[in-house]
């Protein structure tokens, strides 16, 4: 008797829409038989729970389909961008300038530091196990294949992903998107596609830059710890590096670029009416960007080793 009643109370708290029905059922049957009353309450509660679950599932499916349609339109418009939308080239150039060129400083610092840390740790530890030559393999795996693309993606999410999402959100609130529509400029092809492509190009450029700078930076640091000849260092590095390492790095950079560009533009357009929604979508853009990039990174790495 106790358990179902507690369950009923729990359900009444949990399922707000059926609370009024539960109270009616409670009153009708309380005097005659308490056990029947409880079962009716539970019946309503379950009914409400199923309805809410159904509604939640329906919304999720609807959102997923909308997001899929959004991504497909973005990809389709991107294909036709070069052919049709010359006016948007300036936006593309500005996006690359903001996302890639202005991020060079922070990318240099991070890649140099990372390269330095790996080389110092490697030089200190690996010779003790007689595996001093493994340092080049570790450098390539860590910088080129793994941390290079993912750290670049994190930096782009934090800098450009949030900037794109908030800028688009502000445009929605101030009716600027409607103004584009009113003069016949498709916001998708003029605003979204150049930003989307700009992020992908920037992601590729910055990943290549990160890899080069990381590897070069590690050489510079080596000179302070254990000087190696320039030619010897790069000969060993290049003999260890495989084409597949470069391809893997580039594939990751393209996939991360697509994810960041899509999430930022999609979230920016999720703003409806109020400027208070803008910080919320910025948080979502960062959170979803990080999660999807990490998952994609794991997936691509797994595919590589399968």
């Amino acid at each position, binding site marked *: 008797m106790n358990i179902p009643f507690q369950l009923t109370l729990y359900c009444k708290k949990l399922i707000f829409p059926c609370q009024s029905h539960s109270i009616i059922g409670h009153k009708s049957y309380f005097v005659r038989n308490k056990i029947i009353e409880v079962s009716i309450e539970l019946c309503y509660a379950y009914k409400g729970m199923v309805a809410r679950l159904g509604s939640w599932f329906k919304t999720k499916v609807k959102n997923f389909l909308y997001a899929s349609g959004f991504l497909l339109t973005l990809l389709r418009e991107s294909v036709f961008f070069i052919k049709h939308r010359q006016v948007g080239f300036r936006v593309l150039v500005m996006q690359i300038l903001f996302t890639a060129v202005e991020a060079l400083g922070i990318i240099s610092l991070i890649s140099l530091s990372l390269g330095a840390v790996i080389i110092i740790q490697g030089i200190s530890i690996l010779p003790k196990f007689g595996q001093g030559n493994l340092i080049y393999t570790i450098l390539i795996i860590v910088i080129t294949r793994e941390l290079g693309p993912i750290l670049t993606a994190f930096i782009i999410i934090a800098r450009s992903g949030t900037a794109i999402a908030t800028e688009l959100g502000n445009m929605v609130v101030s009716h*600027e998107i*409607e103004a*584009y529509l*009113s*003069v*016949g*400029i498709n916001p998708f092809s003029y605003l979204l596609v150049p930003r989307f492509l700009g992020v992908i190009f920037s992601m590729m450029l910055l990943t290549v830059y990160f890899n080069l700078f990381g590897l070069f930076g590690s050489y510079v640091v080596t000179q302070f710890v254990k000087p190696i000849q320039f030619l010897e260092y790069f000969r060993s590095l290049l003999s260890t590096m495989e084409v597949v390492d470069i391809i893997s790095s580039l594939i990751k950079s393209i996939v991360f670029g697509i994810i960041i560009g899509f999430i930022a533009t999609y979230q920016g357009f999720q703003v409806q009416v109020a400027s208070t929604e803008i910080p919320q979508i910025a948080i979502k853009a960062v959170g979803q960007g990080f999660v999807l990039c990490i998952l994609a990174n794991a997936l691509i790495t797994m595919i590589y080793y399968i």
Partner: protein
Amino acid sequence: MEDIIRLEKISILSQNFEVLHKVSARLPRGKSTIVMGPSGCGKSTLLKVAAGIMIPESGQVFWEEKNLLKLSEKKTAVFRRCNGFVFQDSALWANKSMFENLALPLQFYCRDWSRAEIEHRVFSLLDIMNLSSQSHLRPAQLSYGERKLVSFLRALVLKPSIIFMDEPTLSVDHEMSERMFKIIKELKAEGCSIIAVTHDSNLISLIADYLLIVKSGYIIEEGNFEQVRRSTNPEVSKILSFVLGEAATYDQDLLDLLNG
């Protein structure tokens, strides 16, 4: 009268609130249609739906008997090319200067134009409102009135045949309003279809041919200016007297008597 735009059973929901309830209306070609009604009754929404900026939950919008909501991208671009929209809050592009706000539609549609041609067109418009010297300023550096003027000029930049105006003279000083009236009168004389939401009695008396009276998401009266002005519907009289003054609802004979 031939219709340039026709609305059929338009319903608009905003945050679960029905702004327009199965509204049907016709906007005659080459005439000036004024949409009137109390604040928050759905006038601006109606205007945006007619301009194809807002997609209704249900209903159809016809432009020259073609369903606007089912037009291909190319045909939609043709429709956009021939219309201009003045927004209530100006809706200027914040990251562009005044010049760029006016030049962008030209860059988009007149791709064979040289920079000099674009500059000539933009500055000829800015000159009308004495804004040429400030063409490099961003919208945030302009007053509300100036933003409204730029929004008005942006709507004119492609020489539209349909112009939608949402409170065009709001926050604009008397002298500039007069200049706007002059341009609007010229547009009307050239056969441009004008659809305006306004509470400005001067503008209404100057151009109104056709009236739409909106209340709580419904069109309560629709017809020629004189016909609506003589409506016996008390709600219509109340709205007209509120906007145009008590005299607007008097019979023409009485007005003649008052004028001697």
